[in-house]
C-alpha cells in the first residue's frame, strides 16, 4: 500500500537533560490524513518528544522536517506559525478570558489597530459550530466545564490552519459521549488531510481511533505499527518492556518465597472505598507481612488508590478499617498514627526536601509525629540516620549533604529511610524504582522483600510488571481507574495473564 510523503519527519532526535538522556535517537513520522498514537509509560519520553515538536525544548541532535523542509523551532510561537498546533492535557487556556478571546488571542482580527470584537465573536461562533458546539462565545471560559474548555482548546488549535495537530491526552477530562464527539471531529479533520498526533492512556480509545501507533520506552523508539496489526497484549508488552520469557525466568526465581507466606492478621481493610473522578469504589485487604502489588498502566488509578489509603486525598465513599476498627483517614497525620507510611511517586515535589540535609529529611516524619516540642536528641538522630545510611547504602554517606545533591536512587532511599524509622506496619511505596539506576533498583527490591519477611505489610505500586510479579504475594490489577482483578501470585499467574487483564479488563 503506497504511503503519501510524510508531513512531519523527525530523525535521530536526541534530547539530554542534566544526568538524563530523555530522548535517544528517536525517529518519528506523521503522514497527512492519519491519526497516529504515541504510546509509552511514564518517563518513556512522550512529553519530551511533544515539547521538542512544539518548540518548547530545543534538541541536542537530529533533524525535524516539516513538509520536506528542515525546521528549527525556538518557541511555541514559531511552531504555531509553521502549522503545528497543540492541545495539552492540562487545558492551557486563560480561563478568565471569554471563549472567543481564547480562540483568537494573539491573532485577533483588527482594523486600525483596534480589535474587531464583533467579527471575532462571529468567527468563533462559526468555528465552534463546525465542532457542533453552541456556546455563548462572550462568556468567560471558566463558566464552562473542563470538557467544553478542552473542546475550545481544540477549536483554537484547528483554527490555526494546522497541518499537524497534537492532542496530548485530551480525553482525560471528557466523559464517554464527549470522547465520541471528539473522535468524530478527529476523523473529520483526518479526512480533510490533517495529521493528528494523539496521546492517551486509554487503550480502548487508541484502538478505536488511531490508524498507527508508535511506542517509546525509556527515551528510545521501540517501533511503529499499524493498529490493526498490533494486538492489545502485544502493545502493553512493548510499552512495559521485558518479553515474556525473561519475565517467567525472573518469576520462577522468586516464586517460592511468595508461596510460603503465612498471612498474619489483616491490618487494613477497605470496603467500597472510592473517590469520584480518581478511583472507583474498591475492596482491598492487606495482611501483616504481605506484599501487595498494584499493577496497571499510568492513569489507571494506582496512585489514586494508594493516596486514599494514606489520607492524602479524602475518600467520598466506602469505609476503611484498621485492625478491624473503622477509621476515617482525614489527613496523612491520621494515617501515620495508625502505622501507615506513604512514599510518593513524585520524589522531588512530594517527597524529599531538596534544601534540607539527608539527616533532616530522614527524621522528618518521625519528628512530625512526635510534635515540635519533643525534638529527637541529636545523638539519637545521628544513630538512626547512620544506621539507615549504612543499611540502605545511601551515597554520599555524609548525613549533612543537602538532598538535592543526591542522585534519584539515593533520594528514593532517603525517602524510604524517612518512613522506615517511623516503624510503620504498612508501607505504601509508589513507583520507588522509577528513573533510578539498576543497582539502586535491585537494592530497593531486596529491601521490600526483607521488610515483608520481617512482618511489615507493603503496598507496592509499580509500572513494571516484572517487579510486581517478583515481589508481591497478591496482585491487584487496575484499569481505567477501576480495580478489576485480584490475583494470588501463585503458579498460574504470569506476566501474560496480567497483561491480558490490563489490556482487556477482566470481568470482576
Amino acid at each position, binding site marked *: 500500500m503506497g504511503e503519501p510523503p510524510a508531513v512531519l519527519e523527525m530523525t535521530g532526535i536526541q534530547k539530554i537533560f542534566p544526568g538524563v538522556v530523555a530522548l535517544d535517537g528517536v525517529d518519528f513520522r506523521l503522514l497527512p490524513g492519519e491519526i497516529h498514537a504515541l504510546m509509552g509509560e511514564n518517563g518513556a519520553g512522550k512529553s519530551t518528544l511533544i515539547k521538542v515538536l512544539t518548540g518548547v525544548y530545543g534538541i541536542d541532535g537530529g533533524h525535524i522536517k516539516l513538509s520536506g523542509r528542515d525546521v528549527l523551532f525556538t518557541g511555541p510561537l514559531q511552531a504555531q506559525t509553521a502549522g503545528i498546533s497543540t492541545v495539552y492535557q492540562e487545558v492551557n*487556556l486563560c480561563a*478568565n478570558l471569554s471563549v472567543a478571546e481564547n480562540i483568537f488571542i*494573539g491573532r485577533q482580527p483588527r482594523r486600525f489597530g483596534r480589535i474587531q470584537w464583533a467579527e471575532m465573536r462571529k468567527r468563533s461562533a462559526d468555528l465552534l459550530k463546525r465542532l457542533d458546539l*453552541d456556546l455563548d462565545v462572550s462568556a468567560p471560559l471558566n463558566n464552562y466545564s473542563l470538557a467544553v474548555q478542552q473542546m475550545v482548546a481544540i477549536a483554537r488549535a484547528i483554527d490555526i490552519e494546522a497541518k499537524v495537530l497534537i492532542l496530548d491526552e485530551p480525553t482525560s477530562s471528557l466523559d464517554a459521549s464527549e470522547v465520541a464527539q471528539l473522535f468524530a471531529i478527529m476523523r473529520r479533520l483526518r479526512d480533510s488531510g490533517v495529521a493528528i498526533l494523539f496521546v492517551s492512556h486509554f487503550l480502548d480509545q487508541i484502538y478505536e481511533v488511531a490508524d498507527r501507533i508508535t511506542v517509546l520506552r525509556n527515551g528510545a523508539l521501540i517501533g511503529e505499527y499499524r493498529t490493526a496489526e498490533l494486538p492489545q497484549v502485544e502493545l502493553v508488552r512493548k510499552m512495559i518492556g521485558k518479553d515474556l520469557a525473561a519475565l517467567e525466568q525472573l518469576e520462577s526465581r522468586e516464586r517460592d518465597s511468595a508461596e510460603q507466606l503465612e498471612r498474619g492478621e489483616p491490618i487494613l481493610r477497605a470496603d467500597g472505598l472510592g473517590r469520584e473522578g480518581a478511583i472507583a469504589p474498591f475492596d482491598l485487604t492487606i495482611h501483616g507481612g504481605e506484599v501487595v502489588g498494584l499493577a496497571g498502566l499510568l492513569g489507571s488509578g494506582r496512585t489514586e488508590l494508594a493516596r486514599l489509603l494514606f489520607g492524602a486525598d479524602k475518600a467520598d465513599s466506602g469505609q476503611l478499617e484498621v485492625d478491624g476498627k473503622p477509621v476515617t483517614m482525614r489527613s496523612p497525620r491520621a494515617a501515620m498514627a495508625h502505622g501507615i507510611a506513604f512514599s510518593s511517586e513524585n520524589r522531588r515535589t512530594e517527597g524529599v526536601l531538596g534544601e534540607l540535609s539527608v539527616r533532616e529529611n530522614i527524621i522528618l516524619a518521625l519528628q512530625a509525629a512526635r510534635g515540635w516540642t519533643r525534638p529527637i536528641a541529636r545523638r539519637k538522630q545521628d544513630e538512626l540516620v547512620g544506621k539507615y545510611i549504612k543499611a540502605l547504602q545511601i551515597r554520599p554517606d555524609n548525613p549533612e549533604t543537602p538532598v538535592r545533591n543526591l542522585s534519584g536512587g539515593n533520594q528514593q532511599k532517603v525517602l524510604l529511610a524517612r518512613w522506615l524509622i517511623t516503624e510503620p506496619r504498612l508501607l505504601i511505596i509508589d513507583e520507588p524504582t522509577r528513573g533510578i539506576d539498576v543497582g539502586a533498583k535491585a537494592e530497593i527490591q531486596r529491601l521490600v522483600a526483607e521488610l515483608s519477611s520481617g512482618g511489615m505489610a507493603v503496598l507496592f505500586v509499580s509500572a513494571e510488571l516484572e517487579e510486581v510479579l517478583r515481589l508481591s504475594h497478591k496482585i491487584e490489577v487496575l484499569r481505567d481507574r477501576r480495580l478489576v482483578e485480584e490475583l494470588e501470585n501463585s503458579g498460574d499467574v504470569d506476566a501474560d495473564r496480567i497483561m491480558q487483564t490490563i489490556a482487556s479488563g477482566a470481568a470482576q
Partner: protein
Amino acid sequence: MIDVSTTPATNKGGPATRRRTYRPNAQYIPVLATLSLLIVMYTVGAVNYENFTHPSVILNLFTNNAFLLVVAVGMTFVILTGGIDLSVGAVIAMTSTVAATLLQAGWPAGVVIPVVLLVGGVLGFGMGAVIHFFKVEPFIATLAGMFLARGIALLINQNSIPITNGFWTSVAETRIVFEPGVYVSGMAIVALAVVAVAAVVLAWSRFGRNVYAIGGNADSALLMGLPVGRTRIGVYTLSGFCAALGGLIYSITTTSGYAGHGTGTELDAIAAVVIGGVLLTGGSGYVLGTVLGVLVLGMINTIVNFASLNSWWARMAIGVLLFAFIVLQRLVTRKAK
C-alpha cells in the same frame, strides 16, 4: 451536539433563552459592588451633611485625586498581570524633584516634561526587565526601585524646591469653571484622558488583552504563543511612566518638587485598585473599577472632613474595605471554579 446545559454554566434554559437572559458576569460583580458603595456613601453624606450635594464636592474628588488616578491606572496594568509596583510613590518624589531642579536651572518646560516622563519610564523598564529576565519577585524588584527613586530624590535635594516656572504656575491655575466655585482643574482632565486611553488599550488592543491573559495564566499565555516577556516589561514601563506623570501633576498642583512627596501613595494606589475590583492575583478587573476605587478613597476623606473626624477613621475605613473586597474576591473566584 455536546450538551452544554449539563456544564456548570447557568444555562438551564434552552439555546433560545440562553442568549437573551441578562445575568451580571461574575467579573462585573466587584465593580458593581464598588459603584453601589460609592452611591451609598454619597447618599449618607448627602443626608447627614449640609452642602454635601453641592456639585463642587464631586468635582473636587477628581481635582484632588488627579495624581492618584494616574498612578492607580498604571498600577492597574501591573496588578492585572499579577504583579505589584511598590515604587510609584517614590517615583512621584523623584520626578517632582527632578522637574523642580531642572526648571530652577532654567530648562524650558517643553524639555523638562518629556525628560521626566522618560526617566519614569526607564526606571519602570529596568524593574520589568529584572523581573522578567532574572525571575526576581516583583515585590522585591520594585522595592529596590522604591529605594533607588526615593534615594535619588534625596540626593538631589532634601528640601522642598519651589517652582516658579511660568508654564507650571499657569497650568496650575488652569481650570474649567462651570459656575463660580464649581470647577475642575486641568490636571483632572489630564487624568481622565489617561483613564480613557488606558481603558481603550485594555479593551481594544492586543497588548491590553495579553495583559489579561498573563494575569489569568502566564504559563498558558506562553504556550498560546503570546509575547509574555514583552508584555510584562511593558506594564512596568507603563506604570513607571504613569507614576512620572503623576509626579508631574503633583508638582504642578503643589508648584514644588520635594523628596517627601508621594509617601504612601503606593498603598493608596494598591488600595484603590483592589477596592475597584481588580483581582490582586491578576487577570480580572477594569480601569473603570480603579476610577471608582479612587473615588471611594476620596469620598472617605470627604466624609471624614465633613464630619470633622480625625483622619485615622479614613485609614480604618480603607482597611475594612480592603478586607471586605479581598474576601469578596475570594468568594467570586471560588464560585468561578
